[in-house]
């Protein structure tokens, strides 16, 4: 059984966190990473697709609106709809919403400021393919860096996200409380990250890759990548046991996590 995973990192013109994700995957996990150019239409057989942070196409029109129609996005959408593990960080989250792979939208921060600092995050669902390395309720410190990160959606959509346990990360204060003061951008219900109904697509505004190596001073974010590696390994193990390939398992599959919470 082949170990490890190959994470495909999409590079749009204006992506600027692609190398950070690359290092999180290669140095942080010891896994493989492959850059995927936005004009390509070949995902090169990667196990996971990551849409990194940045300012694709200068954030013209709306953040993520132009990138969503890049040639590679046709493949990414097919991959994600077929159950492929897809992670959108910051600008990547905006692209996923624009592509309607995730509900809602990300609009200008409530206070109009570009916010660039660490935030407190609470892990609301440790059963997704992106969070099994964490425990429910874990408090993480992860950097944000965005001007358009205010998550908005219809009340019915927000209710559905909550009822289906699809709010994965929430902005919280030092005591773990989802207060208004802990909300850096005015996001509805302090939502920092969500998954789709099938659980294979995660979008979040904070940057786990920026806290993924000890040299960066904090490894709270590495758990997202460790969880993905574990999910890919599980899916591969299942494929070699039984016949037909299927979407990676996304239900709670207890995988021992490293001590990533703080």
């Amino acid at each position, binding site marked *: 059984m082949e170990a490890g995973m190959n994470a495909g990192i999409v590079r749009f013109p204006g992506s600027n966190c692609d190398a950070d994700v690359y290092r999180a995957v290669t140095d942080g996990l010891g896994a493989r990473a492959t850059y995927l150019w936005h004009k390509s239409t070949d995902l090169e057989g990667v196990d996971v697709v990551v849409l990194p942070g940045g300012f694709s196409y200068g954030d013209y029109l709306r953040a993520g*609106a132009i990138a969503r129609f890049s040639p590679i996005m046709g493949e990414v959408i097919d991959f994600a709809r077929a159950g492929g593990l897809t992670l959108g960080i910051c600008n990547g989250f905006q692209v996923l919403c624009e592509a309607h792979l995730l509900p809602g939208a990300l609009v200008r921060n409530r206070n*109009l400021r570009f916010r660039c600092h660490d935030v407190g995050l609470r892990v609301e669902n440790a059963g997704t393919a992106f969070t099994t390395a964490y425990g429910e309720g874990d408090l993480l410190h992860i950097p944000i860096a965005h001007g358009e990160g205010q998550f908005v959606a219809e009340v019915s959509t927000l209710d559905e996200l909550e009822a289906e346990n699809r709010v994965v990360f929430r902005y919280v204060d030092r005591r773990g409380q989802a207060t208004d003061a802990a909300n850096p951008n*005015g996001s509805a219900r302090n939502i920092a990250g969500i998954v789709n109904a099938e659980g294979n697509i995660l979008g979040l505004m904070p940057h786990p890759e920026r806290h993924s190596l000890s040299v960066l001073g904090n490894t709270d974010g590495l758990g997202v990548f460790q969880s993905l590696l574990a999910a890919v390994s599980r899916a591969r193990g299942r494929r070699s046991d039984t016949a037909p390939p299927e979407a990676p398992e996304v239900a709670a599959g207890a995988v021992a996590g490293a001590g990533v919470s703080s």
Partner: protein
Amino acid sequence: MSRVWSVDVRVTPREGILDPAGETIRRALGNLGYEGVHSVRAGRLIRLEVEADGPEAAVASTEKMCEQLIANPIIEDYVVRVRQG
């Protein structure tokens, strides 16, 4: 007969969507002494030159562009209008 039509698309934040830019303009107007400005909503105007068989066709094709790219119906409303002249 096909010709080029000048088409304006006015995109505004949907009702109920917080508009921090508009709100900031409103407060600034208040600071300048303009009283009675109850609300400001800031949107954008996108002007296109569209080749079409008639104004209706120009509007129809522009509306399609709005649905796909120019506006995000989750957060924005849009109005399409052919300019005179």
